């Protein structure tokens, strides 16, 4: 809208910032008790669009706040580098449909190695291009991690995740909170 000077009166935000706001306001009652003994490890892929290209680390910091609230500080392992200095996963800019799958996967090796170095078994990638690319490079290079939506995890932590909503969870979380 800025690029094309399209006037509008509404504001723009992301669901991540709203989750963080709702948790801070006490409207969304999330905690990490479910993971106290399980100690399942999580990491984040920072989408370029909400990190570096948004001009600040606000959204990706909110993302960390939300995730840590839901899984426990000690169960979140960041990639290096991260936030505004993250590496692109290789799925953006149309790459998933650009017709160069081998190059796209080679590009994604940087991200794959970063994720593997965290030792996390779950990756939160709040951008559908990142999500699909990270799943793909995980399969391609033999990663043993799962890519899940943040909303799935929040519902799991609140004990309201239905059996039908667990397709992408690993066996370790398939039964948690049912």
């Amino acid at each position, binding site marked *: 809208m800025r690029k094309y000077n399209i006037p509008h009166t509404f504001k723009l935000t992301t669901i991540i910032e709203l989750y963080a706001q709702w948790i801070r306001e006490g409207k969304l009652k999330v905690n990490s008790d479910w993971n106290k003994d399980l100690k399942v490890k999580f990491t984040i892929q920072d989408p370029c669009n909400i990190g570096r*290209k948004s001009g600040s680390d606000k959204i990706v910091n909110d993302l960390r706040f939300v995730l840590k609230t839901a899984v426990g500080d000690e169960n979140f392992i960041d990639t290096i580098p991260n936030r505004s200095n993250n590496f692109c996963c290789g799925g953006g800019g149309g790459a998933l449909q650009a017709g160069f799958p081998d190059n796209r996967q080679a590009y994604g090796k940087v991200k794959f190695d970063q994720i593997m170095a965290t030792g996390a078994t779950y990756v939160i990638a709040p951008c559908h291009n990142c999500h699909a690319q990270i799943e793909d490079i995980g399969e391609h290079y033999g990663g043993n991690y799962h890519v899940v939506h943040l909303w799935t995890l929040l519902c799991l932590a609140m004990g309201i995740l239905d059996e039908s909503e667990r397709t992408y969870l690993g066996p370790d979380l398939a039964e948690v909170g049912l």
Partner: protein
Amino acid sequence: MISGGIIVMPKTIQLDELECEFKDEILDRIPDANFDLCLTCGTCTGGCPASEQLDMDPRKFLRMLLLGMDDELKSNPWIWVCTMCGRCQSACPMDIAIPKFIYSLRGSGPRDKRPKGILGSCDQHIKSGSAMGVPKEDFIFTVEDVAEEIRENQPDFKDLDVSVDREGAYMVLNQNSREPVTEPDELGPLWKILHLVGADWTYPSVMWAGENYCMFLADDEGWKYIIEEFVYHIENNLKSKLVVNTE
């Protein structure tokens, strides 16, 4: 250089005599692109995951621009391997606009010669409101169907309210079309969260999807059309105050 047994001195490139039409063309549109400030330090390339793909990298690519190698640039498929992630520019000591340079190259050739996958998704979006080409009736049906299933099977959410085009809703959500199309059950948890916090929200039926492949295609006209249609619908029909990106 040895040619026919005779040593020939390579010719010096006379920078003043170079014709860099494409560079001038981009600079007309992006005056602060800073191309001429490149120090060739290679910081861009050192931190670029697309470096070495197709034997190319951002520093080489910028050299080609500055040397006026316009034809070689425009036919180089590396522009579709680079994701325009912006890490090069953010690390660049001279703040050179490499992603915009790539975007300009993507848009420089005929539209129908750009990658079929991206082109197809852009066309679908213009036509149907989502890159997956889902008619809005199907989107509405899926949303209502999944919501009904939750209301029936999950007693805690028997009052779950999910709507499309509810006028006056405070928030409008966009959703990547891959979710309702390929994994509709993944929508439920998001709606349940919105329900718990008492959010006043709706989906738009016009340009409802969160993605935008016309942007990737560097199709300015298509990109602008999608945004204009979306903004018009929100401003004039739904009159919502907040647009929420779900990714």
